[in-house]
């Protein structure tokens, strides 16, 4: 606590204070929400992630105008890069959006809460275990949620599968339909190259309770990242059978593929 206060005094500037304080959020009397979000951690993480956004990954963003400034929304990007840096970069872009900043709420893997410090820190900046109850309750609170329907299949994939969308879970579509939530597709380019994995050391990962251990660089490489945000997609809650969901998911995947393709076409170099 003392360390985070000391850090905050040094790295959180007036602009970050202003950005986070302006985010539309209902908090309790001690500044927490039911999922553990609190402004101090959000400010600290925006300061740190903002530096990575500006100076390390030099993120380019297009389509910010497609994020609704208020009300529930589900951001659905492709997932890559072993670490959830893609979610972090998208979160920074959403929080800093001048047209209507949003507090990003990322749905994260279930093992995070079991990791000391990291679990609480991620909750503090707005991330929550990807559980349908959490997601549904947040949408009813008019939150802006980041969902990676590929899960670890996307983040943990190896180099030769880069930019290939892996199987999408169907939960996000059910939730979006049930809670009348627009889905905003996002194509993220560059995160694949931040931590290329040439193999997954599964036998080592299992006993450690980790989803995967990539064979690759130990730290993220400074690849340039670009975020391509598409127009919102709306789906009525009128599917009677599970097989009616598949074409809708395919529609979302197809939009994301288009956005990824656009990003790859615009990219002139991986690291510049």
């Amino acid at each position, binding site marked *: 606590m003392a360390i985070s206060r000391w850090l905050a005094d040094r790295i959180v500037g007036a602009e970050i204070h202003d950005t986070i304080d302006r985010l539309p959020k209902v908090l*309790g009397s001690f500044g927490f929400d039911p999922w*553990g979000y*609190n402004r101090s951690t959000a400010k600290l993480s925006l300061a740190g992630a903002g530096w990575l956004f500006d100076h390390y990954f030099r993120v380019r963003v297009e389509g910010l105008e497609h994020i609704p400034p208020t009300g529930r929304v589900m951001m659905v990007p492709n997932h890559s890069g072993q670490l959830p840096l893609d979610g972090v970069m998208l979160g920074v872009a959403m929080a800093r959006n001048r047209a209507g900043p949003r507090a990003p709420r990322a749905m994260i893997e*279930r093992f995070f809460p079991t990791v000391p410090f990291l679990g*609480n820190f991620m909750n503090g900046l707005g991330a929550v275990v990807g*559980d349908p109850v959490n997601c549904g*309750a947040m949408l009813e609170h008019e939150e802006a949620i980041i969902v990676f329907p590929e899960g670890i299949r996307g983040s943990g994939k190896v180099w030769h599968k880069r930019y290939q969308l892996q199987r999408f879970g169907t939960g996000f579509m059910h939730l979006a339909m049930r809670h009348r939530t627009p889905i905003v597709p996002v194509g993220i380019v560059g995160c694949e190259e931040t931590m290329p994995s040439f193999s997954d050391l599964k036998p080592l990962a299992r006993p450690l309770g980790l989803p995967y251990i990539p064979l690759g660089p130990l730290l993220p490489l400074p690849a340039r990242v670009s975020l391509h945000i598409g127009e919102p997609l709306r789906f009525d809650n009128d599917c009677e059978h599970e097989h009616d969901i598949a074409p809708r998911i395919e529609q979302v995947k197809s939009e994301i593929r288009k956005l990824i393709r656009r990003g790859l076409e615009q990219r002139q170099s991986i690291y510049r």
Partner: protein
Amino acid sequence: MSASRIKPKTILVTGAGGSLARRVMARLMDRHQVIAVDFRRKVQTDAQIPSYQVDLSKRRFEDIFRDHPIDGVIHLGRILTNEYSRFRRYNDNVLGTRRLFDLAEKYNVGKVVVHSTHFVYGADAYNPAPLYETAPLKASELTMDLVDAVELENLAQIYLWRNPKLHITILRPCNIVGPGVRNSMSRLLSRRLAPALLGFSPIMQFLHVEDMADAVVAAFERRGKGIFNVAPNDWVAYQDFLRACDCRVLPLPSLPPALPRRIAERMGWSSFPPYLINFFKYPVVLDGNSFAKAYRWTPQYSLSDISAYYRSKKHRTADA
């Protein structure tokens, strides 16, 4: 509902020696006949309140039903998680409650309010937030020491379904704290040095004992039955609340998971028992909106009021 419109009833209150029961009885005694029961001791009460020391599982307990025309039961009496052995807790909390329900059925009691606990949900890393009343009760899956809490609930639910005339209302409150409360959380907040797991500070909810007393009375006097969480729409991280209560945090190593449990066992802290360790690691956040809406209940005490109480308590002790 105004007091003048409520028909006076004869109400048996168990656990009468506890701080919650005393507050509940004080609220009810003006408009109802209250009967106090406690298994620990004969509770000193006002002259108009008959008081009995009796174990619910003993035959003598039925005499109270024979001697008084009991209309309603408020079952607050239970052995807390920091008291006695697991087996004693099971006998008194589960088998004693079964006998209470049997007698309530036999003597045509029209309303039963049962005080349960948020512990029944279990503290699990995958717990979503908030937990609605329909969430699975995982406590017994996580630790045998909370089996009695889950069994008591199961029992109450069986009677709730089997005999609708009992009008059973089960209340699952979050951490009840405040003056006179002697549960593990209240003891912890009263300490100058309170243990916490390194790297874990789960979100918690706290309910002032006066607010809980209001909730129990509302559940008894207003129509309705069912299972309800009782919790405010306010949240705080455990370690932040410790600091707000002027507790210094004693960090315990959290890995491997067995280590803090061993330390708690060795230290013999009744306020931080090994089987509750996970509640200091993972959040159990309740949605209390159904109860608040159904019984038009709003907590009056804020987290700041609660922390101010524990701060002043420490200063009073220091001055003394």
